[in-house]
């Protein structure tokens, strides 16, 4: 899963998004490989989540999106449900890629 809790971050993982602190300053850029030292620094800066690159991403996102379609099979063509589904699709894309 690309968005992970800091406690699950391990050395060697690669960031897929830059990390900013509360004041908006960039702490680590995207693409960087994580070291023990960095995990400690992020922890000190009160960072709780980071986005990491996961090779199985595309596959799992596709699966998620098709499962989403299946769940909405009985929701009909009601416009509100279309809206809810679209927002969920965007949300899943955001957190899983």
């Amino acid at each position, binding site marked *: 899963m690309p*968005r992970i*809790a800091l406690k699950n971050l391990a050395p060697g993982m690669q960031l897929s998004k830059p990390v900013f602190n509360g004041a908006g300053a960039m702490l680590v850029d995207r693409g960087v490989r994580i070291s023990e030292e960095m995990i400690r620094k992020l922890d000190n800066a009160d960072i709780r989540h980071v986005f990491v690159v996961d090779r199985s991403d595309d596959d799992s996102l596709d699966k*998620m999106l098709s*499962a*989403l379609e*299946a*769940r*909405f*099979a*009985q*929701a*009909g063509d*009601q416009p*509100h*449900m279309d*809206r*809810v*589904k679209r*927002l*969920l699709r*965007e*949300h899943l894309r955001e*957190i899983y890629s």
Partner: protein
Amino acid sequence: MMTMRSVKTQIEHLDAVPTLPAVLWNLLKMFENPNASLPEIATFIAKDPVLALKILKVVNSPIYGFPGRISSITQALLLLGLNVARGLLLGVSVLEIMQKSIVGLWEHSVGCAITARIIARRKGLKDPEEVSIAGLLHDIGKVFLSVQFPDLYSQVIAEANARAIFVADAEKELFGVTHADVGGWVGKKWNFPRSLVEQMTYHHKPDLSKHYRVHTAIVHFSDILIRGRGFGFGGDNLVPCVDEGAWRLLGLSDGHIRETLIEMEDLLEQAEGLLLAGKAT
């Protein structure tokens, strides 16, 4: 198909089911007294350390999000108030049977409670705790049906999944009633507050709610949102259609829904310990 009257009679005599866990039996006995006071409830909980621990776990979880740590039962009861405390007691007491009746129902219920609280706060409700407890208990009818009629209820779940229909529709075919009706009966028989009874009874038909329309609309939409997100399992893998009146009543914009989803992710993650409590049993 069973008649509604016979299902209702048997549900209301649930305390005679031999497999009913002792903790739940004792609880229902205590609830038979509509005037059970706060000290009486506190004494009841104090006799059962496992129950006490479970309550503190929920009270300190994102289902409530009280600031600071609550470490005593009395403090928890005072903060929650008598009505919410009764609902919470029922919720944690059925945790084990909930996971036995439908694996994933506990996660679905906790997810719905968390979502309901986020929306209740957004709508500025003065009693968001009442809505989150209703979210936690909205499917309790499924648990009671499966306790009283274990074989028939497994058939309901099997039917729903084989035919890709809603659990509520499969229930209607076999029992003539749904878990929402059953939840309402349980709530009335064991003296739950009217707001909770309405939210449980009408979470699929929020337009029928008379006195707690906004509360019921929130539980209705939270059920939809948590199912849509694919978190937990309510017995089928389908998202029901939102009720038109409830949708208008809530008036959530795209931005509101987006923010709610993001907040849900954070709180669900924080609720990990509570969710594991369901898995361990």
